[in-house]
């Protein structure tokens, strides 16, 4: 079966310009060769530290940022360079939910205007009454009241705003939603509500999620599979359970031990990571992780490991493990 979405060797390099002539003096390797398959109806988690290129990957998939190279396939069709009407049509299938519920809603539009905009853009509802009815429908789907549509975003709490953002994404009946850290700006109690809402919606509409986050426990909970990114590359992909029980990559190894356990009596093996994430302007040669790796060898410095199958559904990019 062809996956719903395939990303092949996606790269995004941001040029840094300098000098009088504005020539390119360096480039930030934000995304450096990401390949990923997402099957219909599944939730793929994408985790990694700040600045590792998770969000850029998500935005490249939606073409909110133009990828520098690589391919994006949707339902067996190369959509990397779609323009105009074809791209607009594709935007109905791929949507995004943003991290910051305060910045992602236009402060000058009413909730009804925000949620209904997509209906106008794509001509999904013919009359004002039809738009209104659909907006009410969408608001109820995400657990808001119909009369909320006359209010402005600033009148709502973070969790409610995030629901509005979700309603906006649902308006076009998308197939895949990129959730760009949708709960990391919310209180823990609200996080659970929004996560549950996302799961309910997935079941109801058969949605596929690319769930970007840096909170491992949230990702573990919601994802079928998890991809771990480090400095612009995916270092390991596995089913959620496998990744936590049997991490292969030395980076993934260290990650769960950094999650605090709310019980002081529990002792566990901590694998501390030393040093900092290297600068993506000048990433290390070979394996990007070798500067912080406990088991690195000479060839890790020269040769970049490719992502290869280690077990059924478990892929890892390491010369030494798997």
């Amino acid at each position, binding site marked *: 079966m062809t996956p719903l979405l395939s990303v092949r060797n996606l790269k995004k390099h941001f040029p840094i310009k300098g000098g009088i002539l504005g020539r390119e003096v360096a480039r930030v390797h934000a995304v450096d060769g990401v390949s990923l398959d997402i099957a219909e109806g599944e939730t793929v988690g994408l985790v990694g530290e700040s600045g590792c290129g998770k969000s850029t990957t998500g935005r490249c998939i939606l073409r909110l940022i133009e990828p520098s190279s690589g391919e994006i396939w949707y339902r067996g069709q190369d959509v990397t360079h779609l323009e105009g009407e074809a791209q607009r049509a594709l*935007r109905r299938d791929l949507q995004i939910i943003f991290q910051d519920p305060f910045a992602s809603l236009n402060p000058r539009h009413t909730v009804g205007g925000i949620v209904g905009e997509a209906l106008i853009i794509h001509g999904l509802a013919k009359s004002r009454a039809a738009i209104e009815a659909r907006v009410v429908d969408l608001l109820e789907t995400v657990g808001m009241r119909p009369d909320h549509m006359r209010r402005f975003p600033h009148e709502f709490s973070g969790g409610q705003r995030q629901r509005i953002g979700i309603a*906006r994404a649902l308006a076009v009946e998308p197939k895949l939603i990129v959730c760009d850290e949708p709960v990391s700006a919310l209180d823990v109690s609200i996080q659970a509500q929004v996560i549950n809402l996302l799961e309910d919606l997935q079941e109801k509409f058969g949605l596929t999620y690319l769930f970007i986050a840096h909170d491992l426990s949230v990702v573990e909970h919601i994802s079928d599979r998890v991809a771990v990114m480090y400095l612009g590359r995916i270092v390991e992909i596995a089913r959620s359970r496998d990744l936590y029980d049997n991490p292969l990559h030395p980076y993934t190894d260290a990650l769960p031990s950094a999650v605090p356990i709310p019980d002081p009596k529990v002792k566990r093996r901590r694998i501390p990571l030393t040093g900092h994430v290297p600068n993506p302007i000048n990433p290390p040669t070979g394996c990007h992780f070798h500067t912080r790796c406990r088991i690195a060898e000479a060839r890790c410095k020269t040769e970049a490991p490719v992502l290869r199958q280690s077990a059924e559904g478990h892929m890892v990019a390491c010369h030494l493990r798997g």
Partner: protein
Amino acid sequence: MSSTVATPAPPFSPTRDAWRRFRRHHLALAGLFVLVLLVLSVLLGPLLWRLAINDIDFAAQLKPPTLGHPFGTDDLGQDILARLIYGGRISLAVGLASMVVAVVVGILVGATAGMSRGRVDTALMWLTDLFLSLPQLPLLLLISYLFRDSLKTLIGPEGGVFVMIVVVIGGLRWMPVARLVRAQFLSLREKEFVEAARALGASRRRLVVRHILPNALGPVIVAATIDVANAILAESTLSFLGLGFPPDIPTWGRVLFDAKDYLDVAPYWALFPGSLIFLAVLSINFVGDGLRDALDPRRVL
């Protein structure tokens, strides 16, 4: 599904909401009142105050305010009230029209620069800097020298001069607006709600008109109100140099200028046009403040 809308929704309209916020802004309300009063009096004044603006009466030279001449008379015995009523039409019209020209050009240039990356942006900002660095007075001289007569024959003496002055003043004041708009666009363009609209498939035009521009207008409105004041004053400079309206057309700036040699004997002569300019500028500023807040739904007030 629509049966659920049965809950009595409060009547809502963005215009009424904005007006409600505007009304809460007491200074803006006062400003609007004064402005309307000024506009009404320059429009209807000549019907009520029937003294001619150029009725020379040497018997009544430099008379302080009396019942017959509430604002006094000037050195030729002309009634200052009548002159200010007549001149107010031109001054206010020049001020508002120049502001509109400056703001429209500024928004067009700034928005184009802000939305396009690279060469277009660079070129437009060079143009803006170029205009900013031009010495304005010599340029004004040149423009009016070149176009004054042809405009006069084209539209008529008063209309021609009016169009020329508005274009010249507006055409030399759009740069700050352009920079302001561009800066706003650069930051707003990257905001997530704009990205969201892009992800929904909104056209560039829709992004600008519905999402970016409305959020960029706050500072522009403030700049625009200041522009009105500047334009009223700039017009008097031009008239003084003999490039604006002919000396016998008593714009506020012109009357103020004529009064300057008699400040010691007839201070009222300068006081009245000065106060009118001050009142107009101040009230427009307050209205601008109120407008900015009224158009921002986040203001609860």
